[in-house]
């Protein structure tokens, strides 16, 4: 009995000793008594935090390491442990949330940001932002909005972002088209050209199709994102226009070309034009360095204004984290001007702030951030809508019927179900 008591006291002592590592005087978000105007100074914070990233390329991993190395120079008292969550990141993280031991700071993809916010996995950051006086205005608004919950709180700050642009082989296309009509003309002139298999590599789904839908005056949802807007004459016309690109042989899917994705199709010379994001740059530089290609802005469609879609990811802090102060210190650095410049400087990622220098080759991508609409994370259950759209669209192409009525019907059903559920 005495031994058990001694053991229990030892555990208690160790626990107290460990928690004393947290800096006194600063409390986590929402922890301070009402009316406290104590400013938050990240330089005063010391302690540890773990950072969770998903498994991607060695280049990306080392870019994060560089950013963290620069962080430790500016904030030598906070030690951040970089861990890679391999496998299915989303599944792994949800499992860790359930076990109440996620990393303190971690990636949050726009795709499931709203789901994670609703489930209560993420800690709100407003208190930290206010107390430190951290400016959020330099972030591109449509990136930041994705990580704002329906309760108005900010749950993540975008660490980078990507927009979809047109990538074209400059040997085959001398002047890039600036309007959709010109795009069709250019593609038509390339039909049957020896050496390429098709003029364009296109995505038979909303991953890229959404940008064309917007460009041609259509929309998936109403402006307040509360109801579907794909079953309107404008949307139907836009969708049929996109479908006709496949019908007339101007665009084919990467599957039909036998390529892993459209970037590979461009690199191999199977197509002359495709639509991808900033990730294409690193890929082409390493895998197909001899191909002459350039980015150009998404052609303007019948809607009359420039539009494209964007994908982004943020850093978030776990609601269960015992090291929120330390995690925030890292977060505000990594998404601040200095940290983001280190992270994006090598061309691995594209800045999500307008006050960070644009890395070489990404001008078009960053230009698009100013006028892009979110390509994911703007509605709950978007994944199901994407699947329904892609299945129906793919079926029309495989069966060579090229009719958008079925696509619209399937998408409307999926949207209504997602908005209701």
């Amino acid at each position, binding site marked *: 009995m005495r031994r058990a008591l001694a053991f229990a006291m030892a555990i208690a002592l160790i626990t107290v000793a460990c928690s004393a590592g947290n800096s006194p005087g600063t409390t986590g978000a929402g922890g301070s008594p009402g009316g406290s105007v104590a400013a938050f100074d990240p330089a005063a914070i010391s302690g540890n935090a773990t950072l969770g990233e998903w498994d991607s390329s060695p280049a990306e991993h080392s870019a994060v390491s560089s950013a963290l190395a620069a962080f430790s120079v500016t904030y030598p008292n906070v030690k951040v442990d970089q861990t890679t969550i391999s496998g299915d990141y989303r599944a792994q993280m949800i499992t860790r949330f359930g076990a109440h031991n996620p990393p303190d700071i971690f990636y949050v993809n726009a795709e499931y940001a709203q789901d994670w916010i609703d489930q209560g996995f993420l800690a709100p950051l407003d208190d930290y932002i206010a107390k430190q006086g951290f400016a959020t205005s330099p972030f591109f608004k449509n990136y930041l909005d994705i990580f704002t919950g329906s309760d108005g709180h900010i749950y993540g700050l975008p660490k980078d972002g990507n927009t979809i642009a047109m990538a074209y082989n400059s040997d085959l296309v001398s002047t890039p088209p600036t309007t959709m009509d010109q795009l069709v003309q250019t593609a038509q002139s390339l039909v049957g050209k020896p050496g390429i298999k098709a003029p364009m590599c296109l995505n038979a789904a909303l991953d890229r199709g959404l940008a064309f839908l917007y460009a041609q005056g259509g929309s998936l949802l109403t402006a307040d994102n509360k109801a579907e807007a794909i079953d309107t004459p404008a949307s139907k016309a836009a969708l049929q226009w996109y479908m006709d690109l496949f019908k007339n042989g101007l665009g084919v899917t990467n599957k039909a070309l036998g390529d892993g994705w459209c970037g590979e199709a461009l690199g191999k010379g199977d197509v002359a034009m495709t639509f991808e994001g900033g990730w294409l740059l690193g890929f082409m530089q390493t895998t197909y360095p001899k191909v002459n290609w350039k980015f150009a802005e998404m052609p303007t469609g019948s809607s009359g204004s420039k539009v494209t879609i964007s994908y982004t990811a943020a850093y978030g802090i776990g*609601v269960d984290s015992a090291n929120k102060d330390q995690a925030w210190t890292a977060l505000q650095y990594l998404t601040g001007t200095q940290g983001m410049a280190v992270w994006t400087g090598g061309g691995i990622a594209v800045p999500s702030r307008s006050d960070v220098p644009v890395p070489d080759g990404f001008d078009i991508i960053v230009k698009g951030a100013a006028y892009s609409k979110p390509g994911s994370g703007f509605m709950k259950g978007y994944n199901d809508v994407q699947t329904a759209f892609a*299945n129906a669209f793919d*079926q029309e192409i495989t069966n060579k019927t090229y009719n958008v009525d079925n696509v619209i019907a399937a998408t409307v059903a999926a949207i209504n179900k997602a908005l209701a559920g």
Partner: protein
Amino acid sequence: MTATAAPAPASAPTPGHIGARREAFAGYLFIGGPMILFLILNIGMVLYALYMSVWKWSVLKGPLAFIGTQNYVKILSDDKFWHAVQNTLYYTVIWVPLTMAVGLFLAVVVNQKIRGQTFFRGAFYFPAIASSAAITVLWIFLVSPFGLFNEIRGALGVNPIFEALGYGPNQDWMGDYHTAMNSVIILNAWTTSGTFMLFYLASLQSISHEVYEAAAIDGAGAWQTFWKVTFPLLRPAHFFVATVGVIGGLQLFDQAFIGGGPNGEPNGALSTIVLYLYNALFTQINFSYAAAMGIVLFVIIFSATLIQRQLFGRTPAA
């Protein structure tokens, strides 16, 4: 414990009596460890899943509110679930007999006294122990539109046969929703045939020579011997292999996930029950719905096994 009728004097305790009790105790001790694990990790988890399925469940806070059979009602009206059931049943009904046939064929072949028997046994069994993820990725590569399979059949000149069946020279076997599930069936028939081969081999080798000798004396040819003698005598093996096959087939996940992603693309052709359960868990983040699906799957598999046992399980009297 039975008291041995020892002719020892009744005053002293018989050594056999104490030894039997100690042996039994040792036996229980050995069983105890795995049994406790089985009770906790198998039975316990099934009961926990049942518990989860009747509560509204929050990932962070656990059970929130009792909802009774709400999830089960939702499953019954969920189109995607029934589509997954349809796919899974289609897969099982075709894959099990196919793999049994291939496994039996391989077992018969490997049972012959040929040179390199052990090598062939190992070679046929190898896919079963290799990583299913690695094999699936390679398979997707092989059957892609410009992959090895299409190239070879083009070179061999058998394309006209495929054209007649409606498949072009660059057919995307895994990417076309008409052929995706069939491609997975063929893939799994090949990889699992090794396991079934082993089961059949064990049974084949237990058939005594005398039976074959009798058949030979009666003038039966090889084919007749196989169908009239060997095949019926393998009935217990058929039952076992079919049961194991159905249980495994109804739980198809790996190849569906790697080939079709979490939504079972293309067009939901590769959506299976377990894949949809995974979707409910990590895309919809609805733990109790996923648990309910797990229970429903358990009931389906259990029923299938009981039906099989009822129909085919009885061994004929010798």
